[in-house]
């Protein structure tokens, strides 16, 4: 198990290294950041000093090493716009995105898994067909459009919920502690959950159908297991793996790319920050964001793989040296 873990860790480090090169080339080396940084009216002397200060006169590989060195120390530089360290800027937006993404995943799971199981358990039932139709809508209708509809209905038409923004925050920078916080959270979370909800239904249904048709379910029935047990024991355990996989990856992308929802609902999270920094050409923020997103995905992947070991004993054996 330890060897397995260390191997995966080395893999993860390699991925991070490759990504740092790509991000560096993509954001730092292409175009000239000086043009953004400097007043066009500055004298050539000032210009040169600044170029040297940022090391832009060095060969590319040396620039990369400097960049890598500071990143490894957790130093992503200061935001051009906010004039504060990029890392703390991004981390200050993390709780908002985290609670939005988590709530969305929870909604998607609590609704999607039972509905998916039902649709897979009784694939011919009319209710199952209705569920599948809903799931198609869930992941084919564009997020921003659903978001606008939600705002139109719940905020503008009925005035039940606020149309955007975030409620008061409490401990850990989260807004889930007050009822008012939830009124702000509900619509964007619902909007963000829709795609995952649809995806989860499909995934769970496919898994359930497969398990229900398997010999071991038939054997379980031959032993007189009640249907509730057949589903609770055999189906849930067997569909766990695909769900955890997609779930993990989806959680990563939800965190990283809640951009649309955060923009539509004016939710002050990381997604909104990255959009703002792109418009403002705030390079340090963009770089740090990309690197952190890659790190996030790598970590989630690692976690998902480790979870497999707990869910599927066969993986555990293969992973062991």
């Amino acid at each position, binding site marked *: 198990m330890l060897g397995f873990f260390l191997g995966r860790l080395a893999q993860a480090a390699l991925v991070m290294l490759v990504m740092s090169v790509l991000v560096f080339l993509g954001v730092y080396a292409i175009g000239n950041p000086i043009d953004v940084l400097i007043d066009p009216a500055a004298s050539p002397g000032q210009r040169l000093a600044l170029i040297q200060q940022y090391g832009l006169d060095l060969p590319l590989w040396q620039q990369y090493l400097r960049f890598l060195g500071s990143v490894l120390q957790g130093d992503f530089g200061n935001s051009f716009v906010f004039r504060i360290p990029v890392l703390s800027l991004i981390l200050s937006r993390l709780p908002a995105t985290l609670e939005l993404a988590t709530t969305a995943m929870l909604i998607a799971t609590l609704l999607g898994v039972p509905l998916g199981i039902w649709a897979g358990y009784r694939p011919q039932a009319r209710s199952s067909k209705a569920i599948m139709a809903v799931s198609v809508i869930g992941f084919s209708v564009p997020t921003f459009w659903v978001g606008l509809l939600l705002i139109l209905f719940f905020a503008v038409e009925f005035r039940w919920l606020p149309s955007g923004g975030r409620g008061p925050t409490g401990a850990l920078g989260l807004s889930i502690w007050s009822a008012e916080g939830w009124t702000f959270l509900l619509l964007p979370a619902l909007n963000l959950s829709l795609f995952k909800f649809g995806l989860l239904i499909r995934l769970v249904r496919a898994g359930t159908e497969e398990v229900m*048709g*398997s*010999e*071991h379910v*038939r*054997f*379980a*029935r*031959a*032993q*007189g*297991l*009640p*249907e509730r*047990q057949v589903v609770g*024991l*055999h189906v849930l*355990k*067997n569909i*766990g793996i695909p769900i955890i996989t997609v779930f993990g990856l989806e959680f990563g992308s939800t965190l990283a790319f809640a951009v649309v929802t955060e923009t539509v609902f004016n939710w002050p999270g990381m997604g909104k920050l990255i959009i703002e920094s792109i418009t403002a050409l705030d390079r340090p923020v963009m770089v740090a964001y990309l690197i952190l997103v890659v790190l996030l995905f790598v970590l989630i992947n690692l976690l998902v793989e480790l979870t497999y070991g707990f*869910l*599927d*004993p*066969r993986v555990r*054996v293969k992973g062991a040296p």
Partner: protein
Amino acid sequence: MSGASPVRSLPALEVRGLRTQFASRGGIVHAVDGVSFAIGRGEILGLVGESGSGKSVTGFSILGLVEPPGRVVEGEILLDGRPIGHLAAGAMRRLRGAQVAMVFQDPLMTLNPVLRIGTQMAAAVRAHDRVSRAAAWDRAGQALATVGIPSPRERLDAYPHQLSGGMRQRVAIATALLHSPKAIIADEPTTALDVSIQGQILAEVRRLADSTGTAFLWITHDLAVVSSLADAICVMYAGRVVERGPADAVIAAPRHPYTVALVGSVPSGHAPGERLPQLAGGLPPPGGDPGCLFRTRCPRATTVCATPPPQGDFGAGHTALCHHPVEHAA
């Protein structure tokens, strides 16, 4: 042979005129086409026949586990004289595993790979008895010991892939034994076992049948197994029972040309567990043909064989469905 079978009482398991069909693109497949048999308490009935003759479907039909597009269209199934063919789903569920159990054909597929052996067996215990988890594991461990699995407690913690095929098959048998059912349908339960273990299991089954009175329907390809184990034999061909009788009589003096071919195709020194060699020609699709379905492959076939064959009686319950049964010198 268990000569001590009690005076003719109600059979533990009886099947009358069972018909199970599968709706397929090419039409209706008559997988089981009017099968009848009775197994007394403590008796072992061997059901033999080549691949696709409808043995497994017969077993599934008894347990009410035929899945669409299959359907039991006709027939009566009696357990201790009580009809169970038309029970509601819940009542049938309470019967399965408790009163009539089944061991499946494929030991690799029947156990769930992601659940511990103990978890699966304990669930089977608790499906019928309100006992604690710990008590259920205890009973599972005892059942494993019954079928000769060494250090059963540790096996309970294992996952199926950590056990050999033979071991898994024994787990399946032990699971069927958990509630001491009136009847057990064993679908080729020893094919994955090596000869010595197979002998051990067969002896164990014989002992169980004699001591607990459990009736066994022993489905197999292996005539060598049934000849030593079973009290009686039913030979199935294309969904129908073509010959039946006491095991030694059927093996020693087969009357139906198909049985003759089966017995003849068992070479002396035939390794147990080996599948029966395919006879010349293939199995015809069982269909709504009233004549003898074996006639396309039968060396004795005549034109009359296209009409329903009569039931020939050769004494002591030995019968065969054939126009020209094989003669044996007395």
